[in-house]
């Protein structure tokens, strides 16, 4: 107001009220921003800063540590490069298939290829284990083959391709569908034959999308944790896995910090690279461009291509997800002394065992408690992330200068790996959060010892998804319609109920389901943070899988099937709730 008073009297009153209005706007915005920023600051940026600080500890910077870090980095880059190339190898023909051809079951197949991306990593790992692992269905069907899948690089690469093919299909596929046909016609009228049209026109046109898809796939392969830990076994240590081992098994926090810092630097660089490549994809938009619509295959070679690829994709994307529930209800036990003749029987035993607290079992509680823990954590995550995400999303829905500047910070947790987050929590919260002698300190309560830590970490992971789900919905609220309702005599509350509520309700349910599904499947941070007596479903699956014995294996399958069912329900709900573009009003 001081500025307002300083202005001349002639235009003083108008300007003053304008400035007062602006100030109250800014205050409102700050109020909206305070909770999410404070939360991110305390539970994301502060832990990451603590990791970086430990790196400068002389204990971290030893030749041995450098050697371990370097070899982990080398393997991470190696497997991510291979995985990305293989993903492109399958994804490109698949993208061409979906962009170019119509065939029965197309939308179902497209959905099938997208499902793995949304499933928890442990479910995917368990699915491949159920199909190709040492106790898997394939080894039962072909008992004499010497094929080994588990604990090989092949397993890691296969699961990564399974996970990320959908990214290539989506990004490159949409670029293929949006390419301007007239460029190809122009090239042909200028004398280019089919191969040269591909080489000189289509491929250069696809290059931005290929780069973007490749970078994103590489980023996901680079930060992959659950797949490598569960399918690769101890021999394959990426930065993520090595961080986990050093932090949890070796209790070497300085080295874990160093590994995490390297990981963090790489992922941030990759994220930045992706943002740049993705921005370059949106350069050309020609309003009169002519697009090619998909059509049924005509020539013999086209039919062969479509049939073969559809069959391959269907098998590749269905078999692991089918093997998992099947394996969870089948007993494959060798009769005593006769290893070669394995008997097969359907049984609900593995599910029943989940409810029994056996002496000498892995847990001190019936395994099904893990499901209850997971549901509890997921509920807390939903509440927390909606509470924090709503104000941020409402501010972002009508972005000003401040919002454009803050927006990337909110999305940063997407780039940081979950294991890094978990390590940050361990380093940061293994001390009392409040000053030792402060007035609020009630004894020696540490956050690390509390079961609260897991939902807090899950909220950090889920928050970007929640904000990105809420923001477009809130932005689509037609404010004019609210004004119209008011001018027709509706009270502000009734206007809000009529205009805002249907959109807000839908978006919240969708965002909440997102947070719920993310929390259910989260493995990286939870593996580091979950206390032994409070396992979550993914943690329990991992523990079952890493123990010998058919019963443990079967229970892992049963748990993973439960998780798959829950996650699939969540995905279906989100799909159903996806708001029609531009709102439905």
């Amino acid at each position, binding site marked *: 107001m001081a500025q307002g008073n300083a202005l001349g009297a002639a235009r003083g009153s108008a300007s003053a009220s304008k400035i007062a209005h602006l100030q109250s706007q800014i205050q409102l915005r700050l109020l909206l921003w305070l909770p999410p920023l404070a939360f991110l600051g305390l539970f994301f940026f502060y832990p990451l800063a603590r990791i970086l600080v430990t790196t400068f500890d002389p204990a971290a910077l030893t030749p041995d540590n450098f050697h371990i870090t370097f070899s982990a980095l080398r393997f991470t880059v190696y497997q991510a490069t291979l995985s990305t190339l293989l993903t492109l190898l399958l994804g490109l023909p698949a993208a061409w298939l979906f962009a170019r051809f119509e065939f029965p079951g197309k939308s179902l197949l497209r959905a099938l290829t997208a499902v793995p991306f949304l499933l928890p990593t442990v479910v995917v790992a368990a699915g491949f284990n159920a199909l190709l692992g040492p106790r898997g269905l394939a080894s039962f069907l072909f008992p004499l083959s010497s094929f080994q899948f588990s604990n090989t690089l092949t397993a890691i690469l296969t699961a990564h391709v399974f996970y990320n093919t959908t990214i290539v299909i989506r990004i490159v596929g949409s670029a293929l569908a949006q390419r*301007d046909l*007239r*460029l190809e*016609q*122009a*090239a*042909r*009228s*200028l*004398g*280019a*034959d089919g191969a*040269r049209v591909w080489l*000189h*026109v289509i491929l*250069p*046109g696809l*290059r931005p999308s290929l780069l973007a898809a490749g970078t994103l796939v590489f980023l996901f392969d680079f930060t992959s944790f659950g797949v490598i830990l569960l399918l690769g076994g101890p021999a394959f240590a990426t930065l993520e896995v090595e961080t986990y081992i050093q932090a949890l098994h070796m209790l070497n926090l300085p080295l874990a910090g160093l590994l995490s810092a390297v990981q963090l630097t790489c992922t941030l660089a990759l994220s930045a690279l992706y943002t740049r490549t993705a921005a370059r994809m949106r*350069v*050309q938009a*020609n*309003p*009169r*461009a002519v697009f090619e619509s998909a059509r049924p295959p005509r020539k013999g070679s086209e039919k062969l291509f479509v049939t073969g690829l559809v069959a391959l994709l269907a098998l590749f994307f269905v078999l692991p997800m089918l093997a998992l529930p099947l394996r969870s209800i089948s007993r494959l036990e060798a009769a005593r002394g006769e290893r070669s003749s394995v008997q097969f029987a359907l049984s609900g035993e593995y599910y029943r065992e989940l409810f029994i607290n056996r002496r000498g079992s892995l847990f001190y509680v019936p395994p099904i408690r893990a499901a209850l823990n997971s549901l509890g954590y997921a509920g807390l995550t939903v509440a927390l992330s909606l509470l924090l995400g709503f104000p941020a999303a409402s501010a972002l829905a009508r972005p000003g200068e401040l919002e454009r500047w803050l927006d990337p910070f909110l999305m940063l947790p997407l780039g940081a790996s979950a294991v890094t987050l978990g390590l940050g929590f361990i380093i940061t919260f293994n001390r009392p959060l409040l000053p030792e002698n402060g007035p609020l300190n009630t004894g020696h309560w540490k956050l690390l010892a509390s079961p609260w830590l897991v939902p807090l970490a899950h909220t950090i992971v889920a928050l970007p998804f929640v904000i990105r789900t809420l923001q477009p919905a809130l932005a689509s609220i037609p404010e004019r319609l609210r004004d119209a309702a008011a001018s027709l005599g509706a009270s502000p509350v009734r206007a809000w109920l009529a205009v805002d509520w249907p959109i807000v309700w839908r978006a919240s349910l969708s965002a909440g389901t997102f947070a719920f599904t993310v929390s259910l499947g989260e493995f990286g941070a939870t593996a580091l943070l979950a206390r032994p007596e409070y396992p979550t479903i993914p943690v329990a699956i991992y523990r079952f899988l890493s123990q010998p014995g058919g019963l443990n294996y079967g229970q892992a399958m049963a748990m993973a099937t439960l998780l798959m069912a829950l996650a699939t329900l969540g995905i279906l709900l989100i799909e159903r709730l996806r708001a029609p573009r531009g709102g439905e009003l």
Partner: protein
Amino acid sequence: MLELRGIHKTYEGQPLLRGVSFTVAAGETVCLLGASGSGKSTLLRIVAGLERAEAGQVLWDGEDLAPIPAHLRNFGLVFQDYALFPHLTVAGNVAFGLRMRNLPRHEIRTRVAAALEQVKMGAFASRPVGDLSGGEQQRVALARALATRPRLLMFDEPLGALDRALRDHLLEELRGILHASGIPAIYVTHDQDEAFAIADQLALLHEGVIVQQGAPEQVCAHPVSAWAAEFLGLGNILAGKWLGEGRVETALGVVEAACETAAGRGASVALLIRPERVKMGGNGSRLKGRVSDVLFQKNGYRVTLENGLFFFAHVPPQVGQEIVFSVEVECLATESPS
């Protein structure tokens, strides 16, 4: 040189082209004029070899082009919105066709420079095409098509996206370039002003056939049907009833017209009254009408009567004024000859 014989094509189950035939002679620009959606662009793509006709032939000097794929036909094609390769520079775009012909590097360089000079874009050679304005992009697209020295140039509404002043200017230039190069051309448009500005020959495409082909002045003087006269904007089209002995009953009254109709008394005929053939006042004016609108245009006043007739006058009457006038009437065929 180019001859089309009975081209047929269906589009989404509907017949689009139903036997299109016309010819393009050496050094001649044929303007293919038709309404939006009449199949003009499809016809061009068939000539270019980018699409196949279901029936009919495309002949070049009497040779059937069906077995020759698009990239070996050496026909240049210029699109509306230009279709420049966004990943190449101006020079890269112009060089594209020459590279496809595996020409030596130095020859490509000289021919690109020459083609760019021809369209006055020499200074832009190393610029990315995304930086260019619409008119500049169209010049580059033209240079790209010219550089390969095609046997035939085809233009698919090339100026549709440009504003009027620029369009008139480019049309004039294009006409000069086409005549200087001697390359025969097909120019597709739905805009009759554009057509008159460039065409040596007009070909009117209507309901899947060429209803009329000829020099512009000849087509204008003798439009083959009511549709052709209306589409070319030649004037007032009136429906009338043939009363015999050179008399036709219309909404204006009974007028004299020399219709040659095979049908007898009472048959429907269509009449054309060109605005320049309406005379206000004077002796022998027997028709009357009340002025409903007077609009100043650059070359005079456009006068509209309550009965819908319009014409131009140098001295405007008052709105609401009753005037007497005389008309000269031409008889048209109501149906396109098939």
